[in-house]
Every structure is written in structure tokens, then in C-alpha cells.
């Protein structure tokens, strides 16, 4: 613990030294010149971070309760996005109406996956489960490639630029505040993601099912002893976890085109968030999601030309080293 703190403060001192070396006036000038870009990055980061939080919440549930690294999480998101695309393209279903539909479909699909693939391997070594989900991810990704080809598909909301009246207030989109631009799809995704996160926390905190899930996460044997049907809980939890990505998929499709590989980035990001926020912690997933959203957008501003993920991985390694239990997790 002491060493961790020492390392942390050492790192901060090093950063301060670098700052002094560059010169405070130059830093100030840089911030002044980039203030709009910075603000936009922060807003975009927070908005997308809400969706990341939702995806990570599904992963953290599965991680915490079933104790497996689900590498098919991103691929399931891709499935959800194609499903939303098909619903919109063939039947004209609005993506926001598709949220519950795709969520329910992926709940069933997740349950099926758990029963057919994860459950039979419950007593196998942990790396087998990882490889099973990996095989599943390969299968799904390439099945989608066969079905839809690699061409990216996108949808565009017809009412994206319409003003929206909330009571007496009329809001124009894209919304411009504080020198930044907020588009309707991103704002809607953020709001719905927060609502769903809240709903899921309520479910976990206040229902019998939620209690059973938390009990299983805490102590599998103990939960079984007091009469929890842990096999059913595993099934339901995996379903809930994939339902989260299903909902998230419908929410991101209005501003993100879908191709068979699109889930990969989400997958990696979700793992980072889960470790950062604390394994099995729902508020941690949300907080981690927002932080990683910020990190990803800001790292592009601070290190132009680099990819968004570099800063994310840096945060990940630092989190592993200095706070392996996560920001809001229990001490390991």
C-alpha cells in the first residue's frame, strides 16, 4: 500500500516537474488556444462515457457473478447493432423503440449462450471459459461478416435536427451550449443509458432477484446454502449482462455505423472500465465509463494524431498497478 502511494505521488511529482520544464506560460497559452476543443472533448467524452458505462455494467455483472472474462461481450454488441439496423431498415422501427426489443432479444440470446456454452464448462479451468467466449466472439464476428459483408451500415434519424419541445421549453438540435455542440443522438444515448443504469441498480438493490444475484457474487457456496438456485442466477445474470449491451447497441446506432468488427473497441474499453471502476461494482462501472469516455476524447486533444485507445490503456495499466481493486471496488 505504501509503495503504491509512493509510486502515485512520485508520478505526480514527475508530471509537475515536466510541467515546470515546459513552462507555465506556454501551458497557459496552449489551454487558451485549445479551450473550445477541450470543452468539446469533455462533453463528447462524458456523453459517450454514459454508454460505455452501460456496456461495462453488463460486463461487470457477468464478471462479478460468474467470474469469467466474457470476450464475446463486444461481439454481442455488434449483434445488437445489426438487429437494430434490420428493425429500422426493414420495418421502420425507431432505434429508441428498439431499445427494449433488442434488449429482450439479447437477454434470450445471452441466456442461450450461457446454457449451451458457459454452463457446461463451469467446472473447467478459468482459461477454458475465456477461450470459449473467444471462440464465440470469432464465430459471431465472422458469421456477421458472412451475412452482412464488411460494408459499414448506418442509419440517420429523420428528426435529428428538429427542435424538441419539453413543456414550454423548445430545444433546438444540435444543441449549442458553452461553445460546444451536442447532437440529439448522443444526448439521447447518454440520458437513456443513465436511466437504464439506474433501473438496473434499483433492480439489484431492492428486488429478491437482485439480492440473490448479489449474494451469488459475494459467495457462491453461501448463496447456495441459503437456498439460492445459483444455476438460475447464472443464467439470468448472463442474460441481464447481454441485455445491457443490447440496449447500448440500439442507443449507439444513430451516431455510429456498424460493421462486424465494431464491437472490438467496445469490448476492450469495457474491460478497462470494469477494472478501473471495480469488478462487480455497478456505480464503479458508471464512474469508470464516464472517466474512460473523458480519457479517450482528451487523449486525442493532448496527443494529436494518436489513437483514442492509447490513453485508455495507459489508465488501465496505472489502475492495475495502483488500485487493482478498482475505484469503487472492495479491497482484493
Amino acid at each position, binding site marked *: 500500500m505504501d*509503495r503504491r502511494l509512493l509510486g502515485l505521488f512520485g508520478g505526480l511529482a514527475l508530471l509537475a516537474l515536466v510541467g515546470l520544464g515546459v513552462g507555465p506560460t506556454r501551458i497557459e497559452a496552449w489551454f487558451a488556444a485549445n479551450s473550445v476543443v477541450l470543452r468539446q472533448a469533455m462533453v463528447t467524452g462524458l456523453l459517450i462515457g454514459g454508454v460505455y458505462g452501460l456496456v461495462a455494467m453488463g460486463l461487470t455483472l457477468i464478471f462479478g457473478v460468474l467470474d469469467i472474462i466474457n470476450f464475446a461481450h463486444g461481439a454481442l454488441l455488434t449483434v445488437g447493432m445489426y438487429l437494430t439496423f434490420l428493425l429500422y431498415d426493414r420495418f421502420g422501427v425507431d432505434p429508441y423503440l428498439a431499445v427494449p426489443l433488442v434488449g429482450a432479444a439479447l437477454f434470450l440470446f445471452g441466456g442461450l449462450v450461457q446454457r449451451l456454452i458457459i454452463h457446461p464448462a463451469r467446472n473447467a479451468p*478459468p482459461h477454458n471459459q475465456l477461450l470459449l467466449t473467444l471462440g464465440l466472439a470469432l464465430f459471431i464476428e465472422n458469421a456477421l*461478416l*458472412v451475412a452482412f459483408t464488411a460494408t459499414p451500415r448506418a442509419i440517420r434519424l429523420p428528426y435529428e435536427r428538429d427542435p424538441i419541445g419539453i413543456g414550454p421549453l423548445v430545444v433546438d438540435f444540435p444543441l449549442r451550449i458553452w461553445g460546444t455542440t451536442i447532437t440529439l443522438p448522443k444526448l439521447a444515448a447518454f440520458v437513456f443509458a443513465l436511466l437504464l443504469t439506474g433501473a438496473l441498480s434499483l433492480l439489484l438493490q431492492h428486488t429478491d432477484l437482485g439480492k440473490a444475484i448479489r449474494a451469488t457474487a459475494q459467495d457462491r457456496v453461501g448463496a447456495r446454502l441459503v437456498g439460492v438456485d445459483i444455476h438460475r442466477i447464472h443464467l439470468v445474470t448472463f442474460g441481464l449482462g447481454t441485455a445491457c449491451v443490447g440496449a447500448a447497441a440500439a442507443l449507439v446506432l444513430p451516431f455510429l455505423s456498424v460493421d462486424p468488427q465494431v464491437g472490438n473497441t467496445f469490448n476492450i474499453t469495457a474491460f478497462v472500465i470494469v477494472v478501473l471502476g471495480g469488478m462487480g461494482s455497478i456505480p464503479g462501472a458508471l464512474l469508470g465509463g464516464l472517466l474512460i469516455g473523458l480519457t479517450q476524447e482528451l487523449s486525442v486533444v493532448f496527443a494529436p494524431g494518436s489513437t483514442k485507445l492509447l490513453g485508455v490503456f495507459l489508465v488501465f495499466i496505472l489502475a492495475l498497478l495502483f488500485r487493482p481493486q478498482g475505484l469503487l471496488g472492495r479491497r482484493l
Partner: protein
Amino acid sequence: MNHRQRLLQDYARLAAVALPLLAVPFLVDPFLVSLAILTLYWAYLGNAWNIMGGYAGQFSFGHAMFYGIGAYTSTMLLLRFQVSPWLGMLAGAGLAALFGAGAGYLLFRFGVRGHFFALGTFALAEMLRLIAAETEFINRSIGVHIPLIRGDSWWRLQFERTQGNYYFVILGLFVLGMAVTIGLHRSHLGAYFQAIRENEEAAAALGVDVLRYKVYAVALSAALTAMGGSFFAQYFLFIDPTLAFGVSVSVQILLRPIVGGVGTVWGPLVGALLLTPLAELTRAFVRTPPPSLEFLRGRSGVDVMIYGALLILVILFIPDGLVGAGRRLWGRLSPGPRGGRRPS
């Protein structure tokens, strides 16, 4: 049988496997030679992974970092300084061992374990990939071509005419890697590795310097993996950040030992013997499907899709790997004390 005899017996087995393999390029057609090269190559890499992931129980999900370091080191030394890839291979091995020891020390020192360690190695490999894609010196994400030379050159490790020479190179590397594992299997070092795998606290309580031996395991595994990366660069004559540091490299490296049998001497080879031809067969199947499945022809993705499904089936039905399954079967067939042969 005493300790020394067992070791000699293992080496004799290795020789018995390797010596007949010397004849392969003279007997079969070029396609099968290239299949044999790939099989041995994956067996070699799987064996390198197995030292750390199997014997020492430190599950790496990012072995591409060592592989990529090896591939880029030998390639850049060759292109910029005309250094023979053989020396580049050694340099890459040294560099990867240093990197692995450093990264391993940091992660282990801070108590990163299990799932978290696997994810940490994964993140490190991905970081190297992203950094490589931004580095001008190694031509960013465009990648580096190794210029073709006419004829064969052992010094340049490039064979235009005699593809079979690549086979002898990878066979040599494979025998080297296996010899290291066998030596390890029968040594104190290997015993420490396995004690750490079984129970870290107990090993520490018995006086094993856990941190030190875990770092050794990473360094050894990293060095061997990097040499495989150098070989690939010379065989393929092209390297880019995804080929070197990509996720699929890490996955491919660990698949064979897991399917074959984690922490067993022969697991990586057995796994490679099953999976490599399987991958080639699915590819060939999609290239020329049977008439009833004609619609599959030329569709990209079908081969990997089948491969993914087969992978799931193999892991579901042979959870402890082929070597483990073989032993169980052998134990059931041969009547003896305790119903079978003691796993040695």
C-alpha cells in the same frame, strides 16, 4: 528410474520425434512442407507460451508483445544495419526478455494476478501495437518489407529456391524450445514454477522466492517467443503492427497449448498437430465447398466462423486438453495399480 535417467529418456523421446521429421521435405510436396512449417512454428510458439502460462501458471493473454519485439528487432537490424537475422533473433530475444522481466516485475510486485494479470498482458500488447502504428522509425502502420534477395542465403536467413530450408530452421528452433522445456520439467527451476502455479502462498512459505521465479518464467518465455517472431518475419518477409502485436497473434499462440494440454511437455505439439491442419482444411473447404454448400464459396469469414465453432466444441468436449484426455483413456485401457500409469 532415477532423475538423470528420466531426463535422458525424455531427450531420447524428443530425438525420436525430431529425427524422422528431418526427412519430411524430401518426401512430400511443397504444400505439405509449408503446412509442416506452420505446424512446427505454432508448436514452437505454444511451447514458449506454455513455460509461462502452463508451468508457472501465469496466464498470458498478450504474448504478441514479445513476438512483435522479436519480429521488429531482427527486421530493423537487418534493414538498417545489415545485421544477420540470426544475430537479430538473439538481440530480439534479449530485448523481449528484458521487457518481459520489467513488465512482469511491475505487475507481480503490485500483486496483479489471475484474470487481472491476463488483462494486463493483453493491454500491454495492445499498447505496443498502437505505439508501433505511430512510430516513424518502423514505418508506422504501413509495415516493413524485407527486400527479396536472389537465391538462398543462410546468413540472411532467406531462401528463394529451397523453401525446405525454412523447415529445417523451424525444426531446429522447435527442438531447442522443447529441449528447454524438458530440462525445465526435470529441474529445480521447473519445480519452483509448478509450485508457484499450484499455490503461491504455500510455495512462498516453503522458501521459494515467488517474485523472482515468476519474473524468470516471463523472461524465458518472452525470449523464446521473440525468436519465433524473428522467424516469422524472415519467412513472411513482411511485418506490420497488427501482424506483430495484434490480438489474434496472442490468441493463436495460446490456443495450441490449451487445446493440447496446459503445462504438459507435449501439449503444444499435439495441439498444433490438430489445430493447424484444421485451420488449413476449413480454409480449403471454403475455397472449394461441396456442391450442396456452393453458396459458401469465396465468402470471407466462413473459414474463421467454422474455426470458432470447432474451437468451442474442442474446448467443451476435451476440457483438459488432448494430452490429458489421452492419459485418461490410457489409464482406462491399461490395467495396473490405481488403474493407470502415473503421469510422469
